[in-house]
C-alpha cells in the first residue's frame, strides 16, 4: 500500500500518462465502484451516476499528468471530480437535497439517508430529505456519507468487519481480537488499513490536503 510500484496508484498513473490503457483499466477496476456508489447515493439515478463515472474517468485520462501523489490520494482526487460533476447535475436539474421526506414513508425511525438507500435498493423512485436547514450543508453531508458507505462496501471483508465492530459496536481492539479470534496485531493492521482507505477517499471531500507520509490511504 505504501511506496511506488508499477501497480500502485502513482505507478499506474505514470503509465496512464504514457497512454497505457491497461493501467487506466486497472484504476477503473480499483475505484469506479466507489465513485459510482457515492454518485448514485447523491443523485438517486443510476443512469446519471454512470455518466458521472464516465466523465470522471475521462478527466482522469485527460489530466493524468497533473496528478501529484504528494498532494493527496488518487481516490480522493477522483471523488472530488465526481462530486463536482454530481453537483452540476443536481443544479442543472434545479434539484436540492431538501425535497420530500422519505423517513415517514419507510414507516419507522431509521435515518432518512438509510431509508433512501433501502428504497433505492427496492427500485422505487425516491426524493432526498433535508438533514439541515442549509441545502448546501445537506448536500455535503449526503455526499460524504455516500463516499464513506461506498468505500466500506468495496473494502476487503477482513478490514470492513474490523471497522464495523469498532464503530458500530464500539469494541476496543482487544475485544475485537477476542471476538474474531485474531491476533491483536492483525486487528490493528486491518483496522488501520480500513481507516487509511477512508481517510484517503475523504481527503478531497473534507479538504484534507495535508497528506502525511505513512498515513495516506493510497495503495
Amino acid at each position, binding site marked *: 500500500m505504501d511506496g511506488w510500484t508499477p501497480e500502485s496508484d502513482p505507478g499506474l498513473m505514470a503509465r496512464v500518462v504514457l497512454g497505457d490503457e491497461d493501467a487506466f483499466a486497472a484504476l477503473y477496476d480499483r475505484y469506479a465502484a466507489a465513485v459510482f456508489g457515492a454518485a448514485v447515493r447523491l443523485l438517486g439515478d443510476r443512469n446519471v451516476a*454512470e455518466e458521472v463515472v464516465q466523465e470522471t474517468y475521462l478527466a482522469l485520462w485527460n489530466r493524468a499528468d497533473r496528478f501529484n501523489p504528494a498532494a493527496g490520494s488518487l481516490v480522493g482526487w477522483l471523488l472530488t471530480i465526481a462530486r463536482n460533476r454530481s453537483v452540476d447535475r443536481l443544479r442543472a436539474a434545479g434539484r436540492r437535497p431538501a425535497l420530500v421526506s422519505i423517513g415517514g414513508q419507510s414507516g419507522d425511525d431509521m435515518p432518512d439517508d438509510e431509508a433512501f438507500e433501502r428504497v433505492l435498493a427496492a427500485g422505487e423512485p425516491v426524493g432526498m430529505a433535508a438533514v439541515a436547514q442549509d441545502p448546501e450543508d445537506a448536500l455535503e453531508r449526503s455526499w460524504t456519507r455516500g463516499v464513506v458507505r461506498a468505500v466500506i462496501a468495496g473494502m476487503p471483508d477482513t478490514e470492513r468487519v474490523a471497522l464495523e465492530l469498532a464503530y458500530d459496536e464500539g469494541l476496543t481492539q482487544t475485544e475485537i481480537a477476542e471476538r474474531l479470534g485474531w491476533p491483536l496485531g492483525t486487528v490493528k493492521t486491518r483496522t488501520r488499513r480500513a481507516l487509511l482507505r477512508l481517510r484517503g477517499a*475523504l481527503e478531497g471531500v473534507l479538504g484534507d490536503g495535508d497528506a502525511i507520509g505513512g498515513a495516506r490511504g493510497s495503495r
Partner: protein
Amino acid sequence: MPLGAHVDHAEVRERLADAASEIGWQDRLAAEEGRELREHLAGCVTCRADAAAWTRTTDALRAAAPLADARELAGSTALSGDLRARTIALVRAAGVQRDGAPRAAPAPAAPREAYAQPPAFLASGRTRWPWRRLGVLAAAAAVVLLAGGATGLQLIGQRDQAQADVADLTHLTATLDQVLSDPSRQVVTLASAPGGGPGGTVAWSAASSELVVISDALAPAPEGQLYRCWVERNGVRTSVGRMRFTGSIAYWAGQMDSWGGTLAHGDRFGVSLASASASGGGGGDPVLFGTF
C-alpha cells in the same frame, strides 16, 4: 509508553492512528491519559494536521453509521457490467492523445468496434455533451485521413480537412475538460430562439478564462454568413468568436481574452448569424441564447 524528550513524529502519528481505531478516541485524547500527546500536538503543526485529518475521518465514519448496512445495500449501487467497456470506449474516442500516434492509427474497422457500446447517457436521452458524435466524427475524420493517404491525390483535400477536424476536436475536448475541472465553473443551457427549447450548452471557467460552447441544433450558415458567438452585458455585446462546424456539431472553444473579465449573474451569452464580411460585432438576433 511515554513520549521521549526527543519526540519522534512518526511515533506520534502511529499513536494517533492507533487511537483513531477505537471510537471515543478524541475524549481519551482530551483526558489525562492523552496529556502527553496533547502537549506535543500543541507545539507541532505537522502532527496537529495529522490529528485533524483523523478527526475528520472518524467524524465522517460515525455520521455514516450503521456501517454494516453499506455492504447489505451494495447490490443497489453495483456497477453495470458494460460500464467499463463504455468508459474505455469514451476515453478512446474523446480522450487526449497520449501515445504519440494518431488515435485512429489502427485499421478503419477499429472505430466501429470502439463504438459498439455507446455512452449510456445518449441512450437515456439526457445528452448534454454529444460525446458519441464527437468521437464518431473524430474517428471518421481519421479514417478519411488513412484512406486519403492510400488512394492518392484526389483525396488530399479531404485528408487535410480530416486532419484539421481531428485537431479541432482534440482541442475542443481538451478545453472542455479543462473548464469542467474548475470547481467554480458555470454551465448554462442555451435556448433556441424563437421557441425556447434547449439548443446547446456553454461552459465557462473563471480560473482559466476558458469557454466552450457546443450546439447540435444549428443548421449550416447560409452562403456569405457565419455564426458568431458573443457575450452581452448591460445591453453591450462583445464578440467572442466564430462558431466552427464539425459534421453537425457547431462549437467554439478557447480563452476569452477579449472579454477581460468574469462572467457575472445576468450576463447573456448568445449565438447569431452575421455577415461573413463584417469585421466583428455580435450579428443579428440570437439563434441561441442563455443567461448566466
